[in-house]
């Protein structure tokens, strides 16, 4: 993959367009996976990965993240609204209850270096590629 800030026409890359383009490419390859709740996007470079998921209205204490080798497990729960005695649901579309999901990462990660933040209902997890998993650089000796 070539990392270039300019597209073929020499314009500066709009991250939105870039996102749309990459998502189209993955969909075409049939790699947009099963839709298990919560939905995740995974971004990766050679030595790190970022996992994002949209889980609005959670208490960060109710989010449980664990990693083992190349498997990331997300668990969490969200309570429904407390209704007053005279209140009833007229419409109920939002999720509620517990979830658990395994995500396979592009490489094994350093379990001690996982960083997570929860902002505006979006959970962002950053992981680092395990040292042992990194490709070994092979030096070329000249005669």
């Amino acid at each position, binding site marked *: *993959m070539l*990392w270039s800030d300019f597209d073929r026409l020499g314009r500066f890359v709009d*991250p*939105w367009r*870039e*996102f749309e383009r*990459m*998502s189209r490419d*993955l*969909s075409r390859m049939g*790699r*947009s*996976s099963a*839709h*298990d*709740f*919560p*939905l*995740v*996007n*995974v*971004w*990766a*470079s050679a030595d*790190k*990965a*970022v996992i994002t998921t*949209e*889980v*609005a*209205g*959670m208490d960060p204490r109710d989010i449980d993240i664990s990693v083992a080798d190349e498997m990331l497990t997300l668990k969490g729960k*969200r309570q429904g*609204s407390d*209704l*007053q005695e*005279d*209140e*009833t*649901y*007229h*419409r*109920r*579309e*939002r*999720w*509620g*209850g*517990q*979830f658990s999901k395994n*995500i396979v990462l*592009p490489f094994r990660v350093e379990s001690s270096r996982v960083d997570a933040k*929860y902002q*505006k*209902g*979006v959970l*962002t997890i950053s992981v680092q590629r395990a040292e042992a998993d990194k490709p070994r650089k092979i030096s070329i000796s000249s005669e």
Partner: protein
Amino acid sequence: MANDNLDARKKEAVTTERDERTRERRVYQPAVDIIEGRVQTTIIADVPGVDESSVDITLEKNILEIYAKVDPDIPQDMQLAVYEYGIGDYHRRFTLSDEIDRERIQATVKNGVLKLLLPKAEKAKTQKIEVKAGA
């Protein structure tokens, strides 16, 4: 899995000819709960990626409209490796009953959840009309 019949996929909002979009962006229809009570109606919408500064709520006649803009952090110099959800703005429209007290509508956003409190207007007091005996 959370709810049994819950579809985890995001729904794209339906565009009608009335709303011509000026932002080149996907628009999703947020999942909502509507709770009906004696004194108020509560609308709760999941709008991850949104905070109080990026929501527009308009009320025209009895149409309440929510438009929430999302400006996500798209990681730089990284490739998308797994794609399960799209990112975009949120839009949804509700028709309110006339009973709502428009002046006292309250809206809050916390952790990507928009909560709208729509207090019901006090019903016009029934006027008693005296019937006089005919002269």
